[in-house]
């Protein structure tokens, strides 16, 4: 198993995993499976893929520790980059496909919508992390790089807020279409708790 995780095959496996949702989007779109309102269907689908990949990215280091396979950590960067690619696709669908890049309409439609701002801040953080994900930045920022990239947890929590506010429902009364956001909420908070627990156990952060 250790050999598999260290081999190039593991990375090929991860990349294929990241591509599969895109292939299915393409197949469903061109075969008409998206139905009569493909803009809305694509917005929902790309959003779900993005939060799934973000959650997977967060799960990598706990999994590596659980299975004592540090080589798994290699998957984190490609998963993180795939996340931001799907996020950008999500935005492109809304801005371009749904609203035809009509900036004035987009502004009046979304300027005062809290869910959009949670989304926008999430995107800004994720773009910052993607840009600084390369080795050059890692060397340049030294210990600060690790702290900077812990922002992914903030991004995940803001993304959850975006998701909860984007569905028809009410978190406080646990009613409406909130099954999926509740699921992702549990997983992300669990992963965050695992990380905090580890920090309490070993106060000097290991890389």
């Amino acid at each position, binding site marked *: 198993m250790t050999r598999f995780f260290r081999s190039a095959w593991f990375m090929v496996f991860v990349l294929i995993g990241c591509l599969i949702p895109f292939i299915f989007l393409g197949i469903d779109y061109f075969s008409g*499976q*998206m*139905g*009569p*309102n493909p*803009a*809305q*269907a694509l917005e929902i689908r790309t959003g779900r893929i993005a939060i799934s990949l973000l959650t997977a990215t967060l799960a990598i280091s706990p999994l590596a520790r659980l299975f004592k396979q540090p080589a798994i950590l290699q998957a984190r960067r490609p998963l993180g980059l795939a996340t931001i690619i799907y996020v950008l696709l999500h935005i492109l669908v809304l801005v371009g496909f*749904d*609203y*035809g890049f*009509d900036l004035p*309409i987009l502004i*009046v*439609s*979304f300027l*005062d*919508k*809290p*869910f959009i701002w949670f989304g926008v801040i999430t995107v800004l953080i994720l773009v910052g992390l993607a840009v600084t994900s390369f080795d050059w930045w890692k060397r340049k920022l030294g210990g600060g790089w690790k702290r900077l990239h812990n922002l992914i947890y903030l991004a995940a929590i803001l993304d959850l807020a975006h998701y909860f*506010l*984007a569905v*028809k*429902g*009410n978190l406080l*009364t*646990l*009613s*409406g*279409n*909130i*099954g999926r956001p509740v699921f992702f909420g549990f997983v992300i908070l669990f992963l965050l708790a695992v990380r905090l627990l580890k920090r309490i156990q070993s106060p000097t952060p290991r890389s």
Partner: protein
Amino acid sequence: MSKQIKLPKIRSSEITPESIYLSRRRFFKTAALGAAGAVVLAACRSNAITLPTLEGGSTATPASEYSGNLTDELGRSLTTESDITSFNNYYEFSTNKNGVDELSRNLVTRPWQVEVTGLVHQPGTFDVDDLIASFPPEERVYRMRCVEGWSMVIPWQGFQLSKLVDAVEPMTSASFIRFVALDDPTQMPGQKSSYYPWPYEEGLRLDEARHDLTLLSTGLYGKSLTPQNGAPIRLVVPWKYGYKSIKAIVRIEFVDKQPTTFWNTIAPDEYGFYSNVNPAVDHPRWSQQTERIIGIPSRIATLPFNGYSEQVQNLYTGMDLEVNH
């Protein structure tokens, strides 16, 4: 005009025999009166009531078949039948609008009873086919605007709700109507989710219910409603967001207080009782200023009252439509 309307009430026993009896009796009675042949035919199918508009050789042509209209009065093209029957917001089956068609296929819509109850002088439980046969069928081409920002143009067949309201004689204390949809998790898998306050309920003020535009629909494009579109009988209130137009109605209750409604119970700030289409009042998520007409690539501006201001704005004179959203 003032002829007393009587609806056939269903007794728990002998449903079919009674309706056969009634239809025969109606047939002989009408024939004996020497009414026009068309009326006799209409009465043959009807095991129900005689309506003033169908008697005495009225020139009104029942439009139970699709008239062939291609646009609404604003010139907007009709949404295709396949889009209308494959893209459905129907949480009783699924939150996936493209999946309702498949999941609802086996919904049993006959026999189907609608209970009309509450503050009325003539309450009763009526078979849906008796209702259909009792009131003049009409075609209405209406815009349907979903709160999510998409819309359709649909040729409905059905009858005006006001006809039924008049027939059951509301008491003066009745000021609202509550509509309740089928509650059957064995047939409606979405109702197994405990996140929702099933059954689906909606409500109208009595004057909104009596408005000429308010329709009880039993068909579209000249065919009986499909389960995914709300068979066998649903409400259509074209100047309100789509969720007001409750599907698969089993109970119509006349009440003296504003009824609770499904989406208002879930998120009161987001879904008001009135829910009139209003581009000036945004939903927390969706701008209501534009909409995407299904089948058409670009968005268009949403009209106040969904384009029916002229007909309905007098219902809301003096009301703050932002507070009463």
